């Protein structure tokens, strides 16, 4: 298609394709690096109660805490909307949790829970959100890391009739 007189510029189309590829690569690599950097800072780490006791996260850092709601620990503050309870781990470790809001449907003492929030200076875990088992097939993935006994308990009460 190119006129022979334009032979000199024939290389240019190839050149433009190269420029496009380089731009796209730079943008993608930039996005990747940015993502890697941000993920290291913004990822929300999961703690078991014993981990939180042994090596607590920084105060105010967004983390998640998963364990069992201790029997007999659940109480409601006089304002009627703030719940206080303790989450226990495998080795008797115990983290007090405070949560303002409407607890998930199947949130009861003795069941597994994942709390999203941050550790306050006084050692209380302030939760913004609670994830309990959602339905009979749904167990928060994190609870899979619990002891055999707890797993058995959770699966027993969370799987009904499904082979």
């Amino acid at each position, binding site marked *: 298609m190119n006129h022979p007189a334009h032979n000199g510029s024939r290389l240019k189309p190839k050149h433009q394709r190269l420029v496009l590829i380089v731009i796209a690569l730079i943008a993608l690599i930039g996005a990747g690096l940015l*993502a*890697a950097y941000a993920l290291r800072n*913004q*990822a929300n780490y999961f703690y078991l109660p014993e981990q939180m006791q042994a090596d607590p996260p920084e105060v105010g850092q967004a983390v998640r805490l998963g364990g069992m709601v201790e029997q007999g620990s659940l109480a*409601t503050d006089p304002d009627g909307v703030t719940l206080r309870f303790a989450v226990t781990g495998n080795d008797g470790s115990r983290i007090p949790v405070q949560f303002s809001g*409407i607890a998930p*449907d*199947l949130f009861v003492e003795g069941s597994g829970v994942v709390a999203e929030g941050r550790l306050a200076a006084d050692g209380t875990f302030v939760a913004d*959100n609670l994830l309990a088992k959602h339905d009979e*097939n749904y167990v928060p993935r994190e609870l899979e890391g619990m002891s055999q006994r707890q797993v058995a308990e959770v699966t027993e009460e969370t799987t009904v009739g499904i082979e």
Partner: protein
Amino acid sequence: MIAELGHAALWLAAALAALQMASGFLALRAAEGSEIAALVRPSAIVQGALASFSFAMLLWLFAVTDLSVKLVAANSHSLKPLVFKLSGTWGNHEGSMLLWVTVMSLAGALIALIERRLPDRTMNATLGAQGLVALGFYAFLILSSNPFERLPVPAPEGLGLNPLLQDIGLAFHPPTLYMGYVGLSVAFSFAVGALLTRQVTPDFASAMRPWVLGAWVFLTLGIVAGSYWAYYELGWGGWWFWDPVENASLMPWLAATALLHSTSVLASRDALRVWTIMLGVVAFSMSMVGTFLVRSGILTSVHAFAVDPERGTFILILLGLFIGGALLLFALRANTISEGQRFNATSREGALVFNNVMLSAILAIVLLGTLYPLLTEAFDVRVSVGPPYFNPVGAIFAVPMFAIMAIGPLLRWRQDRVERIRPELSLFAALVLVALIGFGIVANVAILPLLGLALGIGLAVASFLPLRGRSLKRVPLATWGMVVAHFGIAVALLGMASESAFSREKLAAIEPGQTTQVGPWSVTLSDVVPVAGPNWTALEGRLSASYDGSEPVALTPQSRRFWAPPQQTTESALSTRWNGQLYAVIGDRSPDGRWQLRLWWKPFVTLIWYGGLLVALGGALALVGRVITDVRRRRIAARIVERRSDREALA
């Protein structure tokens, strides 16, 4: 008998997919007009009919609740309303995969029936690729997730369907998403066909474009429906959680958006050939990755029907085969595809390329954020990635993209000068600046919602500028589609920013008779009463809510208890005004007799979904416009041939 018929049809359909694949690829090597090529189109059509028949049989089994079929027994219940029995057909893993292959084979049949633009060899290669992809999914269904499996002893009663999924939204959400995914599989087949025959031409782009447009419209609708479902059904007051399953539908959408635009460039300007092919492969890869994430049980959510590592492995192998194969083919062939038309940086192509790159960058960010928890889990570190990552990092690329999106359509193809559109540019810049100052300094809005509001306002006006100075009656339908879709993005952006900037939340424990305030609303709890539905009982809060002292409206949030399967859900209650929504959830009773209420006032939140619907409408307009133009062109071509033969006959 019905189940066996369905099962048999499924096997036959798989056999035809194998035939379609073999004949399609063999025809590539065969001589022109060989007999093997004549097999390709008919096998695609018959395969579509058989798969539909198989799916119809499964629908029938669910409609009559045939409890001797394992899938029905595990997912249905005789007391369920009929519409939920039917939607339960695809509310489970096996049924949804059958729906997937049904839609896919119907798409193949449709191409085989109507697509005549492409050279025969390209067409055969395309259908061959489509057969290969379909065959993989048939194998998956038949070998690892047979929907027609019988129980040795019929169950006395079904186990029911997850109550969260017993919702009219579910009747539409998965099918729309699947149509989107499948449309992208068609684009993938076109890309493979074009690569195999090295026919990356504007004709190829025009043949592929309706499929990309259609897929994109369905994906948009699916995402909008899914977002609204999560918003009112989960009772958390949010509309997007960056849940991996949501991301699984967003990623193909981002890729499809990029593909849509580059296909347009290829169709009308014959540029971006290799890039378009690449995006075609990426878009379908994202659909497969999404399916893998959702179906493998690697993620836990309401979407992961059953945890089954075998299935995950199967999908992963399919993913590796299709995508790896396509990328290999791409690497081998990309060099032999000659460069298309050139263009300047300041041109409509330039703007489109820029936004394509931005979309790809956002796609990379979402993909990395979604996969990161899986990666760290390999090292036994458990993390979750949420809005603190996705929102700011995504915005870095989204903000320039929205700015270019406002300007790009004003530029001319190939070559343009910025000076030519200076008035429009100044208008856009002025609007954004005024909004930034107004909301930023006066209303003190946080940075991300502030940028969203400012760009949303600028873009809403700028999206209509391409119509300036044109006779509105003569503007092609496809251009209207672009205008409406871009305006829809602006509207949705405004809704998101407004929700995030101006929402008010109130958590209160009150006794019946007491009143609480949220934003301009005052909400009174009149009573809490027990109510019952077909398969649930509930405690229902009777609220009367008054906006700024006006006539009160009644709201009835519920806390429902289902018995098959036993489960509790919160049913939110919404009151919609033109300027926003009041969102109410009722919680537990505290020991002293007060009820927990959680209330949100969300100004202009509905714009998010109206905007999404406008985007889909824009896509649909463009699709209709393209199809009409195509039909007209075909008719003219047919008439020319007719005249020529008439003339020859006369001569």
